[in-house]
Each structure stands twice: as structure tokens, then as C-alpha cells.
């Protein structure tokens, strides 16, 4: 049973919609700018990717503000029987910040369980709901599980919702890990020095092909294969051998029943940290050998949107498949030696009828690879 995407939408620092993000990326623009939401003077960087118009001091959390905007007017598009998978790493963590800083509310209000109930109400899904959290692979892992449920006949329709926001909690944490670049992130650049935190929300409605055809839905694309793995190596750094990501990519290709030669482009995790990007390029070279496959990262454009990253990147990759072109890697000035000939500071055309590979990696050495057709 094929798992197909029939609805998808995102809210990113470029504003609402896939078009806004796609057009800005194609134009090689970045949304990353100094964060004004909280004081950043104590941190390693001032830069972040924030969605315009959100209220940090509101009683409503940042992610719920984003999700309310995202689902406005989508009522008829989401079937009531859809299962819900909510992908996030920190959800409404700004509620915990307020309770500790101002004594406003209870810290427990920030639990992912509470957020899950809110999102069930917001989306009107009655098919059961679950939080899926796998560090920065959360939404790609959730999409993989959704596709697996459909392929395995356990579900006909799964709604994957993803969200994470830029908060003092997150910012201070990444700063303490020395993971932030002082300037906007430069994935795959020779001089890259870290990531930039970003925020986003998105959803994708995944159905069995049979039901999509029965309901005369427009099929945006197929989640044809997936692979999930762990490095079992280090809590915050990727394996220097890249064996975990290689395993995930090969599993995804096997799951899709395709060969590496059919992959037309790679949407990389590409955080801009020296270790992540090097790890990914090692994996890509190991799988694709001497064939230079177009690779890009969107994190120079919108930042690292954490639990939402995989879903946003999946939406952009689906658009790239349809348009036959991949966006430039924003903020790339001089490609690192190992990425030369793979990444570009300009759009790259892709071979017609090829398939896409989307990779993500996260803390605890988690890796995901999705094959999109």
C-alpha cells in the first residue's frame, strides 16, 4: 500500500505557506536576523529565525500561536478519522519559562501531553493521537512511522503535525553547547561555525493511495521509503564514521525498492555545525560514490527548526521534485572541500523523474532518511 501526501502546509520565518519559503530560498534569501524576543547578550550568538507576529509574552504558547494560524480554515481538509502524530522536541516550553521566571502558571502546563490534547482539539482528529519525539529528527521520524502505519495496513490516514519555537530555554541550551554560529548559519561552507536556531510549524496529511484516489484527493507525492537508525556513539555529536546515517539511507532506499542511482537530489540536514555537515557528506560519498548528487540545506534560510525541521524540509523537497530544481544553499560562500561539486550557491536542475532523499540527524546519534517520489 503506497503512502501518499495529500495535504501539506508550513509556517516558517518567511511567513505562511510553502510558496513563501520556496520563493525566498530560490532567491537565495535568509530570514535569519538578531532575536529581539529575549536578551541575547549572554549567549554565543544573537541570530535566530523567528516567525513574524508571534507574541512571546502571550498566555498562548508560541507553538500554539503558530498552529492556530496554520490550521485556520483547514477544517474540511483534515478527515476526522485521521490518526495524529505530533512531532516536537520542546513544544510549549515557553510556558515553563514563564512559570519559573514570573511564577505564572504551572511548569506542568508545558508537558507534551497537554500540547497533544490541544492539537487534537485544534485539528479535530479523532483517530487517536501520539507525541513522537526523536530529537531533531522528530518530524521525519513521525512521517516515517505514519507511512509505515499506512503500508502495514494499520491506518488509512495519518496527520503529522510538527512544531518548535525559538525560546530563551532553547537558545541558552544550544549556546551552552557552543553549537551556535555567531553569524547566520552557513551549511556546508568551509568557514561554517555552528547552527542558528529557527522556529516553524507544519503539517502533512498522509493517506493510503487507495483512499486518496477514492476521495479524489490531489496527490502531492509519495513517501516511498524510510530508514531510522542510531549511531550509539555520543549524546550530542554524530559518529565520525557516518555509519549510522549510511545505514539509514540504505534502509530507506531498500524500503522504497530503488537504487542510489535513482536519487536526483538530497535535502540534507545541513545544520552548519562542522561535525554534522562533515558527517553527512561522508555518508553521501559512501552511498553515492563518485556521482555528485545535488545537495542543499535550507537552514541558512530559516535556521534549524528542530522538531519541525524534517517536515518543513520534506515539504520543500516535494516542491523541488515538482519544479525540477533544487534551491541554493543559502549563505554558502565557499563550499567545504568535501562538499565541492555537491552543494551550490545557486539553484541546480535535477534529472527528470528522479526521486528525492531527505536526511535528518539529532542528539543521541539519531538518523532518519526518507525517500520521496
Amino acid at each position: 500500500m503506497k503512502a501518499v501526501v495529500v495535504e501539506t502546509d508550513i509556517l516558517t520565518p518567511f511567513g505562511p505557506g510553502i510558496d513563501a519559503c520556496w520563493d525566498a530560498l530560490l532567491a537565495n534569501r535568509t530570514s535569519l536576523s538578531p532575536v529581539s524576543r529575549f536578551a541575547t547578550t549572554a549567549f554565543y550568538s544573537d541570530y535566530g529565525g523567528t516567525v513574524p507576529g508571534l507574541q512571546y509574552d502571550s498566555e498562548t504558547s508560541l507553538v500554539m500561536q503558530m498552529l492556530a494560524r496554520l490550521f485556520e480554515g483547514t477544517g474540511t481538509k483534515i478527515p476526522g478519522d485521521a490518526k495524529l502524530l505530533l512531532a516536537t522536541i520542546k513544544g510549549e516550553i515557553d510556558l515553563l519559562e514563564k512559570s519559573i521566571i514570573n511564577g505564572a502558571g504551572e511548569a506542568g502546563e508545558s508537558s507534551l501531553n497537554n500540547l497533544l490534547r490541544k492539537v487534537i482539539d485544534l485539528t479535530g482528529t479523532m483517530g487517536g493521537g501520539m507525541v513522537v519525539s526523536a530529537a531533531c529528527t522528530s518530524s521525519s521520524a513521525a512521517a516515517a512511522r505514519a507511512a509505515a502505519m499506512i503500508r502495514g495496513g494499520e491506518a488509512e490516514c495519518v496527520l503529522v503535525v510538527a512544531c518548535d519555537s525559538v525560546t530563551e530555554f532553547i537558545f541558552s541550551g544550544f549556546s551552552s553547547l557552543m553549537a551556535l554560529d555567531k553569524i547566520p548559519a552557513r551549511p556546508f561552507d568551509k568557514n561554517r561555525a555552528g547552527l542558528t536556531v529557527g522556529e516553524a510549524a507544519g503539517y502533512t496529511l498522509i493517506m493510503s493511495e487507495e483512499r486518496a484516489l477514492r476521495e479524489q484527493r490531489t496527490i502531492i507525492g509519495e513517501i516511498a521509503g524510510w530508514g531510522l537508525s542510531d549511531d550509539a556513539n555520543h549524546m550530542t555529536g554524530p559518529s565520525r564514521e557516518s555509519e549510522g546515517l549510511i545505514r539509514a539511507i540504505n534502509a530507506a532506499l531498500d524500503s522504497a525498492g530503488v537504487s542510489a542511482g535513482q536519487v536526483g537530489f538530497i535535502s540534507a540536514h545541513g545544520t552548519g555545525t562542522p561535525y554534522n555537515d562533515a558527517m553527512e557528506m561522508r555518508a553521501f560519498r559512501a552511498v553515492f560514490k563518485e556521482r555528485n548528487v545535488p545537495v542543499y540545506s535550507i537552514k541558512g534560510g530559516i535556521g534549524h527548526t528542530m522538531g519541525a525541521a524534517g517536515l518543513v524540509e520534506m515539504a520543500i523537497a516535494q516542491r523541488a521534485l515538482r519544479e525540477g530544481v533544487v534551491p541554493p544553499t543559502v549563505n554558502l560562500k565557499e563550499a567545504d572541500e568535501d562538499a565541492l561539486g555537491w552543494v551550490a550557491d545557486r539553484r541546480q536542475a535535477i534529472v527528470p523523474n528522479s526521486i528525492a532523499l531527505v536526511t535528518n540527524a539529532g542528539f543521541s546519534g539519531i538518523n532518519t532518511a526518507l525517500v520521496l517520489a
Partner: protein
Amino acid sequence: MTVSVRGIGWVTKTGYGSVRTGLDQPFAEGEGIHSLAKRGIFSHPFKNFGRLDGVSRLTVSAVALALQDAGIEYSPADKQDIGIIGTSREGSLKSDSDYFRDFVENGRTLSRANLFIYTLPSSALGEAAIHFGLTGPLLYAAGVTGTLGEPLDIAAGIVVAREAGRMLVGRIAAEEVMYAVIEGTQEEGALCTLDEARLIMESAEDISGILRQLYILKVKKGTA
């Protein structure tokens, strides 16, 4: 493919043990989760056990007992195609509070990376993956009730689709924890079927309740 439960390890406030082998070891006075690393439940020393957050300590201890119960040996040099799914109602709430309270108490200027790394719901699973060499899928999955039924289904789906050879799946509730090893073959010595386990894990309120029912089932089936 039939999916069965191969072994179960657990830690409660009063002791620790494993279901198939019948280990049931109460804590001596003054002992508790902090002392587990010294009780020989790990086949090789657990580096920095004392620095782990509470959820991680419980998780890795129950995983060690579950692997032992299932007869699965492990070493850091020999990684294995085993995945892990954990669930709870609270996620990383306690570690979130610990991290941010510490940051605020330090004037909102200094934050501690060693506290921040435990603020992901999946962090404890990562510690388990590193120590036991688990290279399969790793995720935190929690439904509204925080019970084990749906995570068990996901784990079974992963095994059936051969995305991993075996899965560890477990739950933490009220400072008690249990982890089960599930696999896709009905070899002799399996503790129970997935359906039997699911029925118990969905119906019992707490970890102790689940364990009581599992021991009753074990006696009924004569599995040991």
C-alpha cells in the same frame, strides 16, 4: 510474523528485577536507584551513571535487566540491531525544570550543557543506545494516557517490517520503570505473545500493577 516478548526488566521504588528469570531484589536500607550501578546489573561499568538525570538512570537500569532477562549479551564494541521506544506522561518535565531553574538562578547568563542534554524526551533512550550499542530506531512515543499499548504497536510494526531485529519498549511512571524486549520469532522461552503483553500493559494502571499481572501470566503459562 508472530511477535513475542522475550524478557522484561523493571525497577520500582522498593526494588528491581526481571520477569522471565524471576529476579525480584528488594533494595536494602539506604539503597535505591542511585545504587544500582554497584549492584552488578550492567555487564560492563556504566560510565558517569551518577551524572545521568533520574529518567536516564531508571531507563538504562531497566534496559540492562530486560536484556539480561532476554539472554542478550552486549558490549560497547559490539553494536546490535536493536531499537528502543520509551513512553511516559511527563516526558522530560523534571529535567526541563532543573535546567531552566538553574539557568535563572545563575542570573540568566550561565547555562549548563550537562543539564540541557537531558531536556529532550528521547535523551534517556540515547544514553541506553550508547551504553548497550543499540543501533535501531530510537524514539519517544506517548499517547494521551502515557500507557504502553500504542508504543508497543509501533515497536511491533518495526519488528514485523524488519526495520530492526529486536525492539526494547518501555514506560516510566511515578519513578518506576519497565522495559520489554520484543522480537519477531516465537522461539522457545519467550515470555508471552505481544497480544498478551498488550492486554496487560493497557489494562493495568501502574508499573507495579503490570508486573503483578505479568507474573501471574508467567505462572499460568509456565514460562521461565
